[in-house]
């Protein structure tokens, strides 16, 4: 609750600082008091902004997707599939559809997913 008040407090202090600047330009006799208040409000506003920056969460790393590469022992056949539990590199997968040669998993690797809004 107290943390959610920080941005409001910072914004109010910044607004008060602007009002005091305007007041010091128009009123001649209260310059010293106004400047002290101006100084204090600036301190409050700065502290609020620093607190807001500290609250900001670091960007989370995108979860990588894992790809399984299936190749044929006899020909140049190559296919990329989504990783499934139990898969491992050099695992034999039976006969291939094209040349009848044996298929095996030649690689498993992670591909980082692009973040939303990025190509």
């Amino acid at each position: 609750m107290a943390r959610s008040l920080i941005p409001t407090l910072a914004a109010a202090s910044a607004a008060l600082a602007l009002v005091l600047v305007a007041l010091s330009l128009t009123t001649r006799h209260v310059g010293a008091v106004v400047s002290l208040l101006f100084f204090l409000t600036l301190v409050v506003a700065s502290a609020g902004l620093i607190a807001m920056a500290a609250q900001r969460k670091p960007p989370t790393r995108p979860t990588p997707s894992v790809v399984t590469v299936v190749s044929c022992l006899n020909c140049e056949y190559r296919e990329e599939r989504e990783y499934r539990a139990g898969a491992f590199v050099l695992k034999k997968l039976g006969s291939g559809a094209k040349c009848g040669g044996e298929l095996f998993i030649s690689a498993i690797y992670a591909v980082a997913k692009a973040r939303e809004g990025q190509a």
Partner: protein
Amino acid sequence: MLSIKLAQLLPSGDPYQMLFSLIYLLAFIMLFMVFNQHFQRMWWTRDVEKALVKLDRYVKRSKEVLYKTVVDQGKPDADPSKAIDDFLEFFVIEPVDKDPYGVLKRLEHILDVERSRFRTFVAYIAPRADPASAANLEDLLAVTMALNLIYKITRHYLILSKRTKSLLVLMQIAYAVPLILRTAEAYYNSLDAFSTGKPIGDSAGPMVAGRFMLGHPCFQVAEDVVASEVPFEGRTLIVLKADGPGGKVGKPGDAVVKVVEEHRERVARIIMVDAAAKLEGERTGQVAEGVGAAIGDPGPEKYKIEEVATKYKIPLDAVAIKESIEEAVSTMKKEIVDGVEAAVERVKNIIRTRTKEGDVVVLAGIGNSIGVGNG
């Protein structure tokens, strides 16, 4: 005349303005000179405390993953959480090295006992896990222990700095925090690979060996190490790798010694392929070549290989696939797979150009065999 000059030395103008100027001045002096160290201590403490919160989250998450994997794969009869929590405090005391005579044999003995304790413990908490899953659970347990240790050491230095009010202790841990977090994040990111059995960056060496073993029968040659005899352009390759697809590194030193002692002078070269830590700025998956025993063990296995190579005057070739520490323990990246392909070609080139037909060549793929079968 004199009075005018004295008056010039005194501040003039609005007295309130002067008073407040003096207050500002004193405030700034207090801020930057008197409380400077106090503020610095606050900032450093806050940095370390923030890192501790993160490390605590990593430890809790890794324990959750470990419990879940043990229950899913090992199907224990009783709740294993208490036994796991107790085992996380397990430690290894390195042998005394003030008298270095025989230190590697003593170290090997202690590492053997450590491995045996891990194996026995995993068999106890996960009695129904298959051999590959049990090996992965050992790795997962080791990762959780490492994260727990990192958290406890960081917390120790923070509390020590608070109790002793030592700025020096606090400064050291605060400046080490980015590197500590980097290592911890690497271990944290490896949880997925170790819990599901996917190949990691360190599996690059066994992957290269596996490419040569593909389609050839393999046999056990040493503890957790398998070998295949592979004919290659008139030469005989004896290809070695850790027994996969479980997370094992085996004892490749014993395997190389056994194979070389069997073939003796017929062995023309020993080629070792391993993942190597890259320097910042180097490309992941880059392949480099050199000489020597390419193996990152604590010492005993490397010593055995160097010893037998020296005994029979066999040249040792090293092929390194570059990757960062984080990449070495995380699920393998595409760049490392490309590095594996390049390393296979590099090994073929070494065999073609530096050996002749009829020679025996020992090829050892060093590293963790998690997610890599035996071909």
